[in-house]
């Protein structure tokens, strides 16, 4: 199943500011809603998003119940060296998705 969509430019000049865009598939159930029979629907959200660039953490976000389903997170970074960007989302009920993308810096 398609868990996440990542957009990282394949090539960049050294020192260039590039935009990273991520979209992940998740219902982000708040925990505040009730079902049609009045039972509380348990919370099921992503708690943490971390992006590392060649093993160094460059971006981190804590997510909360008010964030919509299928969270879209975009951020800029400076292209310093060729390598791999790794993205990890972790959350309730053992949710964990890891994706990576390569970038060539010249």
């Amino acid at each position, binding site marked *: *199943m*398609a868990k996440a*969509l*990542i*957009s990282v430019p394949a090539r960049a000049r050294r020192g260039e500011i590039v935009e990273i*865009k991520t*979209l992940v*598939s998740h*219902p*982000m159930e708040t925990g505040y809603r009730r079902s049609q029979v009045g039972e509380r629907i348990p919370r099921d959200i992503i708690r943490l998003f971390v992006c590392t660039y060649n093993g160094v953490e460059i971006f981190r976000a804590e997510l909360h119940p008010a964030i*919509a*389903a*299928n969270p*879209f997170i*975009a951020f800029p970074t400076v292209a310093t060296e060729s390598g791999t960007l790794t993205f990890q989302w972790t959350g309730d009920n053992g949710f964990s998705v890891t994706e990576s993308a390569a970038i060539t810096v010249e």
Partner: protein
Amino acid sequence: MRSVGAAAVCALTVAASVFAGEISPAARRSGYDFMGRESRAMQDDETANPGMLWVLEGASLWQRKSGTAGRACADCHGDAGTSMKGVAARYPAFDSTAGRTLDLEQRINGCRVDRQQAPALAWESRELLALTAYVGRQSRGVAIDAATDARARPFVDAGRATFQRRQGQLNLSCSQCHDDHWGRQLAGNVIPQAHPTGYPIYRLEWQSLGSLQRRLRNCLVGMRAEPYDYGAPELVDLELYLMWRARGMPLETPAVRP
């Protein structure tokens, strides 16, 4: 004298709005045109459009062998990029075996049951939405071309009759909002012209992808009418009429809507 004149003008305006009828081809607008800048940007950017999550899932389902026949969609239809281009723009289409028109979801499930010998996918299930979105995505930009088959005509007429029939506790017809009062406000929202140009759509209110039938049922509930069941002939006829009404407009699947 002056008040009589004003009353006459009023009466004329009311008459004009009551009998406005079908929208002329030049005046047609996709729901896209009624959206805010941010929602339009979300739809246009394929890395920001959440509907693409379903399209990607559909791409993997297309390749996956399923059912007792052990066949995948790709085993018969090959590359969807060529075999499915323009298909969604022609649906709902007349099916001679069924003796009536079938929408894209019903066509996909027909293939599953007959060719793959797999159980039909439930309406609004993630898999069915994913396959529909994937097939629909292949027709992005293609002009809608439904109901060219003469055998589909009676179903277009049935759909039009449903569209124009007042129903529900509010005693409203679809046409009263979407033909006569599009562009005006219904509470905080702009009333669109109801052209099904981007289904299945990612609706922000739903926080999910959904089919045209789900959208139609929403409207029926809003009119306080009893919604037709998923797959009911009335809903498929309505879908067909709406597609015929939007003929020539480009498909945007998967569209984003508020």
